[in-house]
């Protein structure tokens, strides 16, 4: 009872204060919160009210945290950066904060996690205790440690997939914009076809053939090699200008691709490599289209014409004229692309077709522990919430960057 009275008194006081000092949006927010709490208190009683109070409190805490984080960043950054950062809305600051936390979690996972990711330390579904913060999963592994390791595995895979998709798509897009003609048309049609298959369905089709637990290391190495050669050829097509340079370039491309395939297969296992390639192929057409559109706008500029008349080659044009003038939209697209890739990988892992056990991963953890939900436990929701939180965070930051780069205020 005391709680109810205090709660409403506080809300009323705050909203009156906001109204008195002419803080219109703060007043609207506070007063609608008061009204909502009133209705919910009548319908659901004190538990519902407590729920609303906790939710509002958490939102407030998140807001304060992001405000403090933004101030922290502005204090650290150089003058120019600080000026930019000061214009960032709170949501963007919140996004940066979450990304920062996840990055720390992923990089220092072995130091933070109290137990190993595949270490069985107790009974299945053991409740939380002093040793295990969130209890045990379906095999008796520490849930908390697995979530920490999941930050490393899931995000690393998604990042690699995004980077590969980006290199392939952006290179093809830049070439299409500078060369035009037949190359442009062919690439455009290929992109059309890939984009007209729903991404999840296409991923399932490819995984049923190459991937999953049956993936062979030699297949994955060959696919990686093939992918690298395709990307290398694109680079070559941009940079080479005589028969001799084509020959030398081709040799370099084969060598680099080989080293690249070796390095990749030693870091990731076969099914993960295939997963990365699948997402890279599925999402590169989006990057291609955007890059082509952005670069297409730059290519028609006078300074490009001037550079061409100076006798500059394609490679110089791409590197020194087009890329610097189209970074802002490309960086934003990278963030968006990461969200798509991340969600796709999480979904595939949830279906048991992505990252294979015993590697800890947020998507598959949800599925493996889903039975706990029917007992009213929320632990299986934590990795799912982590996926949602990271995606929201990246989206918030991207929103701000898009807004900044377009300079539009709607």
């Amino acid at each position: 009872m005391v709680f109810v009275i205090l709660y409403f008194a506080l809300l009323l006081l705050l909203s009156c204060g906001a109204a008195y000092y002419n803080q219109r949006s703060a007043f609207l927010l506070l007063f609608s919160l008061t009204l909502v709490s009133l209705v919910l208190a009548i319908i659901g009683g004190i538990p519902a009210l407590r729920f609303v109070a906790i939710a509002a409190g958490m939102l407030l805490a998140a807001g304060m945290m992001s405000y403090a984080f933004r101030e922290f960043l502005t204090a650290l950054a150089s003058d120019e950066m600080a000026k930019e950062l000061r214009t960032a809305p709170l949501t963007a600051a919140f996004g940066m904060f979450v990304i920062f936390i996840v990055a720390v979690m992923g990089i220092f996972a072995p130091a933070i996690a109290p137990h190993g990711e595949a270490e069985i330390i107790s009974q299945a579904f053991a409740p939380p205790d002093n040793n295990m913060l969130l209890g045990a999963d379906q095999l008796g592994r520490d849930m908390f440690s697995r979530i920490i390791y999941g930050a490393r595995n899931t995000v690393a895979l998604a990042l690699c997939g995004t980077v590969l998709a980006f290199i392939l798509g952006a290179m093809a897009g830049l070439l299409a914009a500078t060369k035009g003609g037949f190359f442009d048309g062919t690439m455009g049609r290929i992109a059309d076809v890939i984009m007209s298959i729903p991404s999840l369905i296409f991923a399932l089709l490819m995984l049923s053939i190459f991937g999953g637990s049956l993936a062979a290391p030699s297949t994955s190495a060959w696919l990686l090699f093939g992918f690298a050669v395709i990307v290398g050829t694109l680079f070559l097509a941009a940079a080479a200008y005589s028969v001799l340079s084509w020959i030398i370039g081709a040799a370099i491309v084969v060598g680099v691709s080989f080293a690249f395939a070796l390095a990749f297969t030693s870091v990731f296992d076969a099914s993960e490599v295939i997963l990365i390639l699948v997402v890279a192929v599925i999402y590169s057409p989006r990057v291609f289209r955007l890059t082509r559109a952005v670069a297409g706008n730059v290519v028609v500029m006078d300074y490009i014409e001037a550079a061409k008349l100076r006798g500059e080659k394609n490679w110089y044009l791409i590197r020194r004229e087009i890329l610097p003038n189209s970074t802002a939209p490309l960086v934003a697209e990278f963030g968006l692309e990461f969200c798509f890739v991340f969600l796709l990988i999480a979904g595939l892992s949830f279906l048991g077709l992505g990252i294979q056990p015993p590697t800890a991963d947020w998507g598959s953890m949800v599925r493996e522990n889903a039975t706990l939900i029917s007992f009213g436990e929320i632990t299986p929701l934590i990795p799912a919430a982590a996926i949602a939180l990271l995606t929201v965070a990246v989206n918030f930051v991207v929103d701000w960057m898009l807004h900044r780069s377009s300079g539009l205020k709607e």
Partner: protein
Amino acid sequence: MGDILTLVGKRLGLGLIILLVISLIIFFMVELLPGDIAQAVLGQSATPENLAALRREMGLDQPAIVRYLAWLSEAITLDFGSSIVTDARVTEIIGERFMNTLFLAAYAAVIAVPVSIILGVIVALLRNSIFDRVANVISLSFISSPEFFLGYILILYFAVKWGMFPAIASLSEGMTFLELLQRTFLPALTLVLVVMAHMMRMTRAAIINLLASPYIEMARLKGAPPWKVIVKHALPNAWAPIINVVALNLAYLITGVVLVEVVFVYPGIGQALVDAVSKRDFPVVQACCLIFAATFILLNLAADVGAILTNPRLRHPK
């Protein structure tokens, strides 16, 4: 009128070509399999005689292009061969499930489309207010959440804690329609939440774009009342983007359905696809992929054709 017909005809032809290319991809993707289907079915320990026998039985000794044409001509008549795991006809496995999936998608669409369009218009009219910003943050959060997160939250509260709806959307013979609606409410709601956020944002963007155009400004300046500006000037031009938004999101629904069906153990085609992928049952995978891709293309086509048909500028050629 002739202009519209050629435009629509061109668009339909393009859709057909893309569908054909996709059927090529789906078929020849399986050809890329290390070894071949017979090898995949029998595993590493198969004897050469067994392999040869199975290859003959499945017609694998014929060239790929012949098998592709045979597969395509059967697929057009909705006959996708038989499963290599259970030997059942693929059409039997996925036929009824496809209807279930369509029902779920339609259920979600019936709720999501009107609500999100109305909300989108309201938010567009109130743009840059605090409500707009809150709606922006909330819808962004829903878009960013994986479908299974929303699904399990709904299960936790509506099924486990409050016991209002069943957690598992199993269907049985002889259910009344109301019972059916109640059983499938949670999966439908999950889809509604995801799709609604998308649709609302897209509607908002389309309407704001529209309200910024010069003829709206003109209508306001000549003193037309606000409702008249909306109904007479904005709405006829808004149909094209709105139809586009709806069709694109229905296409999105079709793929979102896969994860939701798995969460709620709903007997739909998405679940069949996931099962077939983990069992490497290629005829079923091919059939499901083809159906999903065809639906996706069809809806995208509908979006384009709808946009062409509702464009007033194309109805009155100069």
